[in-house]
């Protein structure tokens, strides 16, 4: 018995130590964001800001366009969440329940793109973007991220595991397919909408490389792109950089705390990270 409790203590010590490794960067991110450049370069670093100041946050919104960046990021994120839920559930429903000749070939053509590494598409997508005249627009950022093959797959699987009788009853009552979809099926998928929507939110909010390529004027920058510019302008001002990082991190942390269970479940189910 004594051996087992020793083992348990060791386990908790290991877990706490590792958790500290994950948590400390965030702790210092917050501390430094409330410090002046002099305080931020103190040796050793402060565990708490000696004279907390909002100076960095104020400058983010006055000297830089952080308000605009946030707004742009909200536009991109909300469009992606709404658009992907709408498109993926519609398309997933078609693949799950409707007849189409060569449907399985089509489905394979859809899933096949999951195997392509994102970087392959970077340059050719930019060329298509230019031909469509969408350079330096948020529409261009959104348009090329709107199709989620993973999402279609997820919705198809979920719909296939639902009883079909409600839908057929609605057909008997004279509803057409689109009415069946949005009166009967769509509301029943609420749990999927939540977990998939959370995934898309985190993905859209943090999206970096694609908007970096599409957007060229600061007016259009999303938050991660605008944030990345800080390190050029404020190279040694860690207070500014950390304040920007905190602003970009708060929304996702709030979501993580509120929806921990759903996020864990859906992240584990997807291959979303990266």
């Amino acid at each position: 018995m004594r051996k087992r409790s020793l083992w348990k203590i060791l386990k908790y010590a290991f877990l706490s130590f590792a958790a500290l490794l994950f948590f400390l960067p965030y702790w210092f991110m917050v501390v430094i964001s409330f410090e002046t450049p002099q305080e931020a370069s103190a040796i050793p670093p402060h565990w708490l800001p000696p004279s907390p100041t909002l100076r960095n946050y104020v400058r983010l919104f006055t000297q830089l366009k952080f308000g605009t960046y946030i707004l742009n990021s909200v536009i991109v994120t909300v469009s992606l969440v709404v658009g992907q839920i709408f498109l993926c559930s519609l398309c997933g429903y078609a693949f799950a329940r409707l007849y189409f000749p060569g449907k399985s070939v089509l489905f394979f053509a859809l899933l096949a793109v999951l195997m392509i590494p994102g970087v392959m598409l970077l340059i050719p997508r930019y060329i298509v973007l230019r031909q469509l005249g969408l350079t330096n627009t948020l529409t261009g950022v959104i348009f090329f991220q709107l199709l989620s093959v993973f999402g279609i797959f997820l919705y198809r699987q979920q719909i296939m595991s639902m009883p079909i009788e409600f839908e057929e009853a609605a057909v008997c009552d004279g509803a057409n397919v689109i009415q069946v979809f949005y009166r009967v099926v769509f509301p029943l998928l609420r749990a999927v909408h939540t977990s998939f929507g959370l995934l898309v939110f985190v993905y859209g909010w943090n999206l970096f490389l694609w908007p970096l390529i599409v957007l060229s004027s600061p007016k259009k920058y999303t938050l991660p792109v605008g944030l990345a510019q800080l390190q050029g302008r404020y190279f040694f001002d860690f207070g500014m950089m950390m304040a920007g990082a905190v602003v970009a991190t708060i929304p996702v942390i709030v979501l993580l705390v509120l929806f921990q269970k759903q996020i864990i479940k859906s992240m584990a189910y997807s291959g979303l990270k990266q």
Partner: protein
Amino acid sequence: MSRLLGGVPKKKQISWFLILSSLSLILLIVTFYIPILYAIWFAFTDYDALSRPRFVGLFNFQKAFTDKVFWISFRNTLVYTLMVVPLTTVISFLIALALNENSAFSRIMRLFYLLPLVTSSVAIAFAWRWIYNPSYGILNTILGLFGVQPIRWLVSPNTALVSIAILGIWSSTSYYILIYLAGLQNIPEELYEAARIDGASGWQQLIHITVPLISPTTFFVIVTCFISALQVFDPVFLLTNGGPGYSTYTVTFYIYQNGFVWFRMGYGMAISWILLGLVMIITAVQFIAQKRWVHYYA
């Protein structure tokens, strides 16, 4: 295969199918298939984003094989991957193993481990830029307590790639802990009970039950971790910009530089095909090798 919607004639189903899926299918063509066709065509041209592309045959591929910077990027990518994949796999397995219990402590701990998973790579890079700062960063401060001389993490060509790899391990471990936790929950509890009745120790249960039965998850972790590590870009771009010298150039970073900094888009695309080839070969090898070590519980 599930049943089709009854009560709607086949002909009508075809047109409804097209109506419901048309937007997605158009996006599939415009944002995936047309770019892929371009990627094939432009890899054989000297496209520079301005003038008309000129067909150059295999020139871009030949050039890559004699291009010193390409080989440096290639080697850096492999070194990075070989540092990140094994350590990420082992560390995330150990943490998941310790976390795999239904207690309040474990649930709160999980929150901490999940942080990097939901954080923007830019915010993460800023935090680590400070951690790695040679004069007042926390890492050298802590190492200094043990008498270690200050290390110039990101600034020295000897340590820059290792620094990027440490950050890579830190941020990807977060995701794989989740995957392992999900996998651990699928191992039937009866097996452990049976083993305990037979007098197996905790260590024996780990080696003879957990490790073999988690091997399908381990296989997934290794395959996906390889694929993403071979494409590492964000930390390189944000922390070192490939430097100092070429010491942190990775293949993806080199593709970005060619395409969007030097506008050698044809060459950039040829390199991305080489990268795809590398990813596919490594993945195929893993799928062949898995027969030797992955156990599927039936």
